[in-house]
């Protein structure tokens, strides 16, 4: 029987605490257990509830990492990283280079969309991307999550794990679609992969040859030469899709892809505006319809 991403995370965390390592976070044991991803063991000594002092909390997990507890730190809204990232990015990201000291932290950072306001909505991996020293991945499937955790537990580096609540029910893996001579090449990250998966089917049915390369790792970026070669053969270039603002990671990755391929690469992300708390003021990641419309418009204007 296939397992959901939610259960994969929960099982990973259970094994983590049973191995003597620690999980930190705020409201871990509250109703919902962070989207059902936390083992329901409120009295377990390795599940540590932190107070509402986000900047401090980042420092606490750094201290835990320095003494070998390989903490998993759960930040239940990615926007809270504006506070939480300060000490993690500036200390944990630099200890190896500065002092030859390991400080591995698995930072679970969870995004969601819709009706949740100007901070809690969307992904914010761009905060960490601009700083050297922290690996970043956005796993959306059970196997991807296992791969990222495996990297963490077998290395001495910190990993920012950009999660999305809408992916927690996912059971199956994503499959890349490769057209030999594509019209357009898609490089989606995070939750945008779900809509890209649907958009690709629709575009293909309409005769628009679309290559689709699902991206797990953001830093280091793991876009292989084969993907760049495919981009070089494309008619209209590529699109980087992300759940952060366009000035987060997307434009930087598009820049690198353009240098490597010589082809134009555009970005499609959440919009450059604040989200509100009412649904009419949402700022959502690109939908299937928006992706298709964007590509059709691109082709018509070329």
């Amino acid at each position, binding site marked *: 029987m296939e397992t959901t991403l939610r259960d994969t995370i929960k099982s990973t965390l259970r094994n983590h605490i049973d191995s003597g390592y*620690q999980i930190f976070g705020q409201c871990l044991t509250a109703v919902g257990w962070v989207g059902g991803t936390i083992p329901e063991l409120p009295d377990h000594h390795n599940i*540590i509830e*932190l*107070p509402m*002092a986000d*900047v*401090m*909390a*980042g*420092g*606490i*997990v*750094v*201290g*835990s*990492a*320095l*003494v*070998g*507890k390989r*903490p998993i730190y759960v930040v239940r809204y990615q926007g809270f990283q504006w506070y939480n990232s*300060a*000490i993690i990015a*500036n*200390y944990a990201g*630099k*200890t190896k*280079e*500065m*002092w*030859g*000291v390991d400080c591995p932290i698995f930072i679970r950072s969870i995004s969601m969309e819709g009706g949740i306001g100007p901070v809690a909505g969307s992904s914010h991996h761009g905060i960490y991307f601009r700083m050297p020293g922290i690996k970043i991945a956005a796993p959306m499937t059970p196997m991807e999550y296992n791969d990222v955790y495996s990297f963490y537990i077998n290395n001495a580096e910190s990993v920012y794990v950009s999660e999305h609540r809408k992916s927690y029910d996912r059971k199956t893996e994503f499959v890349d679609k490769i057209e030999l001579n594509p019209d357009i090449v898609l490089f989606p990250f995070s939750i945008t992969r779900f809509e890209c998966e649907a958009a690709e089917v629709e575009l293909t049915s309409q005769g628009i040859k679309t290559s689709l390369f699902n991206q797990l790792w953001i830093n280091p970026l793991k876009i292989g030469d084969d993907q760049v070669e495919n981009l070089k053969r494309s008619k209209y270039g590529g699109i980087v899709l992300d759940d952060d603002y366009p000035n987060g990671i997307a434009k930087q990755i598009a820049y690198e892809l353009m240098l490597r391929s010589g082809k134009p690469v555009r970005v499609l992300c959440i919009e450059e505006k604040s989200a509100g708390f009412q649904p009419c003021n949402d700022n959502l990641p690109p939908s299937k319809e928006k992706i298709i419309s964007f590509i059709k418009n691109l082709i018509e204007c070329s």
Partner: protein
Amino acid sequence: MTQDLKIEIFKKASLSRIFEEIVYDNIKKSAFLCPIYLSAGQEFIPATISTITKTPPLIFAQHRAHHTYLSFGGDVIELIDELLGKKTGCANGMGGSASIQSKKINMFGHDGLMGNQIPIAVGAAFSSGKFTLGIMGDASAEEDYVMSSIAWAGFKKLPILFIVEDNNLSILTKKEVRRNWDMHTFAKSVNVDGYNISDDPTEIYNNLSEYDFKSPRLLNINTTRLFWHSGAGKDSYERLDRYEKIKKELGSVGDDIYTTTKESLDTIWKQRLETR
């Protein structure tokens, strides 16, 4: 405090003081390319604590920490090399004066964010269960995350000793301009034993004689920064030079310790400067 203990503390204080005097002279000669934060005037704090601490602590200090490093047994040559920017320095030539560390004495480096050593120290104390020292200045103590960290240490009853080296100055801005509260009263308000004392080694000793080194405690220690915030120079305000006072009290014993320590450090410095 016994005379032997007083002398032991004075020896460590002398190591820090004379080291800083030599650094001071070399700043004047432009020997260093990085900013230097001298700890002279504050040396009796780590000299005393390191002498009477029962178990080797995990140490988290900030940018002004030469005296902490030396008092707890950090390698002198590695500190000199660090200030000179050599790969053989205690922070591989990356740390300069402000980000020194020593794995040998469990002293962790500081990255430059004011006060972040305190939540990190609290996290290390929580996760390891080991006795930990969290050292800050009176200015970094004002960081919001420092205060919440002290509160959490109190809540969790962690084995951590917070030291506020209170020289009353944030660069040159006095405490009375910045706040109207004290760290020791704040500590008490969050269930951490808080004390306001001077940097007289006897007073520090008396306080810690009643400490179990297993629970949270905060000492706000009033002290004097002898030199500028950074670099070589003296500010114009009145100051008590605790080191000179105690050296005088110790008489010829103090003079002898000063002379032998200076000779030893002069030799080491000369050799390191020649090999740069």
